[in-house]
């Protein structure tokens, strides 16, 4: 802890990392609560894995075609939104084949990403950091983009809270009250996509789902209104990402995996304590 604090004051990359974790946690708490209560974590998983395709293509164009302005994060934004819209339209119009389409996009997105990364000269370690995150690699430039996405996601998520709540709770009733259900459903999936992009930096795309769902699941044990869950999940998520950074720094562990392991442990602890409380 002492060692971490000393380093934090010395190295800007640690400050960026800490800030990225906090910023990501806000979007994570708000959008994660919608995702969990609407039970669309599988869709979020599909979107997360599709971002590898976008990042791979962007990195290829950046290195091989000299599109130096194009960062992998830009590719992630485009592919995530695209995946969210495709999955959303399919789930709205062909309900019975929703899971097939998600699974297909999930795998195709990853395949495209791996192919482009393989054909891009340079360090293959980048692939690992996309998959499993490396919060210590977050640059100032990344931080600006993550911050902008975060503001957008949080603003939309909070401003249309009542609409999203109604659409998640009872779509049909919301439609009868004049709410444009399809629009808000697709908007929610786009928010999910942008949140996934923000989180990919922190924990990597494979573990995004855990950070999107576990803080919400933990919070759900203590409060029972959606906005309360959002607040508490945000706080828990801040504690977990910061904790993951602190714990992993000394022994040089991967920070993303440490964060998720902490989240899993806390979730388990809360479940067990809940059991004991109910039994007593």
């Amino acid at each position: 802890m002492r060692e971490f604090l000393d380093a934090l004051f010395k190295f800007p990359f640690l400050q960026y990392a800490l800030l990225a974790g906090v910023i990501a946690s806000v979007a994570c708490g708000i959008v994660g609560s919608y995702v969990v209560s609407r039970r669309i974590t599988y869709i979020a998983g599909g979107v997360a894995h599709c971002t590898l395709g976008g990042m791979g293509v962007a990195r290829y164009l950046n290195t091989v075609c000299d599109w130096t302005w194009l960062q992998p994060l830009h590719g992630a934004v485009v592919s995530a939104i695209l995946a969210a819209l495709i999955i959303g339209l399919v789930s709205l119009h062909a309900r019975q084949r929703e899971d097939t389409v998600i699974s297909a996009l999930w795998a195709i997105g990853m395949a495209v990403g791996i192919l482009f990364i393989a054909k891009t000269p340079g360090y293959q370690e980048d692939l690992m950091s996309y998959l499993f995150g490396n919060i210590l690699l977050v640059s100032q430039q990344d931080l600006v983009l993550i911050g902008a996405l975060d503001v957008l996601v949080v603003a939309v998520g909070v401003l249309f809270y009542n609409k999203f709540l109604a659409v998640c709770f009872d779509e049909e009733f919301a439609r009868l009250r004049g709410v444009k259900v399809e629009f808000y459903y697709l908007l929610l999936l786009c928010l999910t996509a942008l949140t996934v992009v923000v989180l990919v930096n922190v924990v990597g795309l494979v573990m995004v789902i855990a950070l999107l769902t576990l803080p919400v699941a933990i919070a759900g044990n203590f409060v029972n209104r959606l906005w309360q869950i959002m607040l508490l999940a945000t706080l828990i998520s801040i504690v977990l990402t910061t904790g993951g950074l602190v714990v992993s720094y000394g022994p040089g562990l991967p920070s993303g995996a440490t964060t998720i392991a902490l989240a899993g442990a806390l979730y388990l602890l809360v479940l067990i304590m809940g059991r004991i409380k109910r039994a007593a």
Partner: protein
Amino acid sequence: MGAHFASPNTHGSKIVMKEEVLRMDAEPIIVCRDVSFSYDGPLVLQGATFSVVPKDFVCVIGPNGGGKTTLIRLMLGLIEPLRGKVEVLGRSPKLARSRVGYMPQRAHLDPEFPVSVLDVVLMGRLGHGPGFGPHRRSDRAVAERVLTEVGLPEMGRRPFSSLSGGQRQRVLIARALACEPELLLLDEPTANLDPSVQESLYALLRDLNERLTVVLVSHDVGFVSVFFRTVICVNRTVHLHPTRELTAQRVADMYGREVRLLHHPSGQKSGAGS
């Protein structure tokens, strides 16, 4: 008063009294003209023609899969008829929606969803307020009022998931009332509830009927003759009767196959026992 279906009807006089208030010549609130519908297959409804007058208290009965829910969904404009025309409050069902309160079948909600009772009721105000931001104070006042009206004052802060089955149904009725509707459509509001809870819900709806037109779906014929003024029998074809004209024979005709199915096993049992 004429012959009543099923058990002797102690509420008969009350119903007749109400019937005098009902204006049969008034402009109908729901009109169906030769309505047919199918879900990519055989017709679920065929040539349904009837009208419902304002302030009526209507029960839609019929065997499962007979088209009761389909009829309600047509009235809400959630589906379009294959042939014919549905009019609600003198316009198309979609345009009439803002003046119609709807309570869906219970099964389609997630009982663990993290919302308070007041959150649920406030969803009924969605069409009224601004497009974004928090609910207005006037919307909250309406929500509190309708919660009191359904007999759940002071319950607004309770989690929806912590309520009993009957209380949840009351909250969903309150949500429909929060729309400040002229017509209330309810799909199986009493399914899977204890008979005493069912009866108190029917009593609540009868009170609401003092100021609203109420149409509800039920698969439970037992309460029909006691509470309702009009019955719509749906089994692909649709027939509307005043309750007092509903005879045991008519119900038996409609439920024909089911009645036989119900009686068959008990006959077998007694045969096996002797």
